[in-house]
């Protein structure tokens, strides 16, 4: 690129230097021509035109440069202002000295040209001329006398003899030419010292006319290549009477060689001086013209060189300015040609190094960023595929990041709330209130924590295991909080199922096996010893063995109940009208001692449930209520269904209320655990099975004593709008039971 630049400069400079050389040469010729040098004088006009054209070309180039510069200045092109200043400085620096030189040259020229001319010289030359004329005048008078004599002689000479007479006189007078003209200027006789000459050197018409009128003529006459001659023309009246004719005698005399030379010299220099004097003004003007054209050439050249130099000088600066702008705009790939080893070259080199390094740094930064992005994407992929929900909050509890699983677990698009306070979630989706409540203390708490949250939403009951910690920021202070939570609903249920399954299996194994031998042994005791005992003993034995057998039977039932509890039948979910099912089941308990009071909500929608399991649930609830009121005369059970629409979650509530003693205080909180019973009868598994069935259906069950009398057990079952609306949940439930 540097070579290209060099070539471009050379491409501009070469023609300009050529033009300047041509102009200088033509100026040289012009100045010579002004001084009348013959070889250039003929070309004067052309030289003048060439110089003018050259100057016009220069003016044109300067004009183009000026136009470009002004355009760049107006457009605010980088470096243009400095270029303008440089050009102005260069121009001023060149114009001032050139103008001074021009001024003094003019002075010198004026004085020089004027000094050539002097009145005294002029006067002396005129005197010399007059002297010459006077001296020649004397010679002319002598010659007139001689011609007069010749004319007298010719008056009586016939035309035929005239030639001889003239020849004779030619020698005697020393004339170079004698000729006699007749009427109509007819040549009568002619005699010349030059034998080759046959025609006389004629006088002009005016002279002849003057002579024919009777007077004579004498005058000096320059003859080509022969110097000054004296011409004498004299009238000759020849013949007599009617033949009288006015003839004209022409004589051409040479003058003395020395006199001729001197007079010629005087004439020559007088003419030269007079001509020069006459041309003085024009000469000055010509010199002025030459000088002015040289001045203009110098000025224009200087101006052009000023443009050229300024642009040349400013090129790297402009490049640097553009480069800096480009760097500011983010383009780090600019490299500029280094021009020379000067400071500007050093600057350009430094700039090139800088941009190269910046470009390298940027590419490294981009690489790092790409790596960070890749790691981030990797992390996001991990978080995205994580089965746990992960949420980070800043210290003001604004949501910073959420993974997709978190939204899935919480049942709403949490990612849409990124950057917003965590409270906004509750406003949009009420069931998450408990979840948000455990997050609130984070603003004041730090360190590791763990908490279990139970949510109840349209999708059912959910147990979330939340763990969190506070991240330590770069300054060592507490920063963001990270919360990881898992949906452990199924896990909890499965664990419980598994635990009770194990209990059931132990019971089956440890209790059920000895029951049969006990029963058989009791029956054998009765069979063997009943007949051998007296009647009273036999009755006692019989009662005892029956008691043993009954108790063993009841223990077997109890073990079977545990087996029922432990087993995990496949759920058969169907659309069920809960009200209808309630009617069907309560119909079986319709006895006079029992008041069955229904408050069934007709608006209650269909639910998705296993009918046989719900029947078992209802039986267990009614049995529990009956057992709670076992010693009362009048028993009453209130069964209510309601369509609840709480926090945007639709579910059906089923309540069974008895009017018994209520749950004892000591069992508070453990009503639904196996073996928790205060009743004399029963396995203690009734409510445990109820809870199990409710949880299998994704519902919730609560029990509480009423302030006036009795207790109420409330079951909430989620409403599913379609059979296949939540097949995953159905499958999950089934899987959990399979495990159990």
């Amino acid at each position, binding site marked *: 690129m540097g070579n290209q630049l060099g070539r471009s400069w050379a491409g501009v400079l070469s023609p300009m230097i050529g033009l300047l050389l041509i102009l200088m040469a033509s100026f040289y010729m012009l100045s010579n021509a002004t001084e009348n040098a013959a070889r250039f004088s003929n070309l004067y006009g052309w030289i003048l035109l060439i110089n003018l054209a050259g100057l016009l070309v220069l003016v044109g180039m300067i004009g183009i440069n000026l136009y470009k510069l002004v355009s760049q200045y107006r457009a605010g092109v980088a470096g243009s202002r400095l270029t303008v200043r440089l050009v102005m400085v260069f121009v001023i620096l060149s114009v001032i000295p050139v103008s001074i030189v021009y001024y003094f040259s003019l002075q010198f020229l*004026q004085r020089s040209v004027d000094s050539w001319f002097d009145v005294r010289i002029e006067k002396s030359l005129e005197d010399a*001329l007059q002297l010459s004329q006077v001296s020649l005048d004397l010679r002319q008078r002598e010659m007139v006398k001689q011609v007069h004599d010749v004319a007298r002689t010719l008056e009586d000479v016939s035309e035929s003899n005239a030639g001889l007479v003239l020849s004779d006189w030619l020698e005697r007078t020393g004339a170079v030419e004698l000729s006699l003209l007749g009427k109509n200027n007819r040549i009568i006789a002619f005699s010349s010292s030059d034998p080759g000459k046959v025609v006389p050197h004629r006088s*002009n018409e005016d002279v002849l006319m003057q002579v024919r009128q009777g007077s004579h003529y004498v005058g000096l*006459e320059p003859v080509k290549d022969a110097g000054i001659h004296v011409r004498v023309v004299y009238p000759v009246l020849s013949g007599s009477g009617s033949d009288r004719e006015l003839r004209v005698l022409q004589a051409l005399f040479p003058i003395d060689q020395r006199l001729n030379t001197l007079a010629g010299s005087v004439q020559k220099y007088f003419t030269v001086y007079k*001509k020069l004097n*006459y041309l003085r003004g024009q*000469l000055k003007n010509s010199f002025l*013209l030459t000088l*002015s054209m040289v001045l203009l050439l110098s000025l224009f050249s200087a101006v052009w060189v000023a443009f050229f130099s300024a642009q040349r000088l400013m090129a790297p600066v402009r490049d640097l300015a553009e480069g800096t702008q480009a760097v500011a705009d983010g383009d780090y790939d600019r490299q500029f040609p280094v021009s020379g080893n000067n400071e500007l070259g050093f600057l350009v080199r430094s700039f090139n190094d800088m941009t190269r390094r910046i470009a390298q740094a940027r590419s490294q930064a981009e690489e790092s960023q790409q790596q960070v992005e890749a790691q981030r994407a990797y992390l996001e992929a991990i978080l995205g595929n994580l089965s746990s929900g992960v949420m980070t909050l800043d210290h003001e509890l604004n949501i910073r990041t959420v993974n997709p699983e978190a939204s899935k677990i919480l049942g709403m698009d949490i990612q849409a709330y990124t950057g917003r306070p965590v409270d906004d979630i509750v406003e949009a989706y009420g069931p998450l209130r408990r979840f948000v409540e455990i997050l609130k203390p984070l603003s004041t708490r730090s360190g590791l924590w763990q908490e279990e949250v139970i949510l109840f939403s349209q999708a059912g009951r959910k147990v979330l295991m939340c763990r969190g910690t506070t991240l330590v920021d770069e300054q060592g202070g507490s920063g963001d909080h990270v919360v990881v939570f898992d949906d452990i609903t199924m896990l909890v249920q499965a664990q419980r199922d598994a635990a009770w399954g194990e209990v059931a299996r132990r019971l089956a194994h440890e209790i059920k096996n000895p029951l049969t031998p006990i029963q058989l042994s009791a029956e054998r005791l009765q069979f063997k010893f009943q007949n051998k005992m007296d009647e009273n003993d036999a009755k006692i034995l019989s009662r005892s063995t029956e008691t043993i057998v009954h108790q063993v039977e009841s223990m077997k039932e109890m073990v079977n109940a545990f087996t029922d509890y432990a087993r995990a039948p496949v759920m058969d979910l169907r659309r069920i009208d809960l009200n209808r099912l309630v009617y069907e089941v309560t119909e079986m308990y319709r006895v006079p001692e029992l008041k069955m009071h229904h408050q069934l909500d007709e608006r209650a929608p269909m639910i998705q449930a296993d009918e046989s399991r719900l029947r078992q649930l209802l039986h267990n609830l009614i049995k529990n209520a009956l057992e709670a009121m076992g010693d009362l005369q009048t028993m009453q059970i209130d069964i209510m269904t309601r369509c609840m629409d709480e926090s945007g979650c639709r579910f059906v509530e089923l309540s069974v209320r008895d009017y018994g003693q209520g749950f004892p205080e000591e069992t508070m909180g453990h009503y639904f655990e196996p073996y928790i019973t205060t009743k004399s009868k029963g396995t203690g598994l009734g409510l445990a099975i109820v809870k199990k069935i409710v949880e299998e259906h994704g519902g919730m069950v609560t029990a509480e004593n009423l302030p006036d009398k009795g207790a109420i057990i409330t079951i909430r079952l989620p409403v599913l709008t379609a059979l296949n609306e939540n097949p995953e949940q159905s499958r999950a439930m089934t899987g959990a039971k399979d495990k159990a």
Partner: protein
Amino acid sequence: MFLSALKTCSLSMAGLLSFICLSCYAYAASASDRDGLRVYSVSTHLQGEMYYLDAQLGYGLSRAALDALDNGVPLTFELEIEIFTPRKWFWDKSQSSYNYRYQVLYHALTQQYIVTNIDSGIQNSYSRRNTALLSMGRINNLPLLAKKELSEDEEYRGRIRVSLDIDALPAPMRPWAYINTDWLLSSEWFTWEIN
């Protein structure tokens, strides 16, 4: 003194600028409509096998030209003669052209005006300027062209013009002479028929 020099300087610069600016105008300006050089009459006659030309020219010189002549500056005039065949729809076809140059010069010692035919070298002296110019304007029996050079079937015309040769002036005078109408002396083309 400085002011006068500055004035001279500025005047010369102004003169130069006006020289540059007016050059175009000056070349376009015609001097032939003034009392300058004229061609009064021209005729040709056949004498033997040769055509001869007679012409009467008028050298009405400007004051500046006469002044220069009296101060020893020789004036050179150029006589251009062209024989051509006129064509209606195209440029005239040139048959032949001739150039003759005459010089008039004042000889101070002899106080004579010398008219020289530069081509032939013949020179004549005249004691009066007007006589010299008149005599220069009289052209008699100037051999023009041979009869055989012309075809009898064609129509021929001649045209003549006389002009002052500025390039023959001394160099210092030329720049101004090129642009000064006093010096741009030239007659119109004068056309005549050749029989």
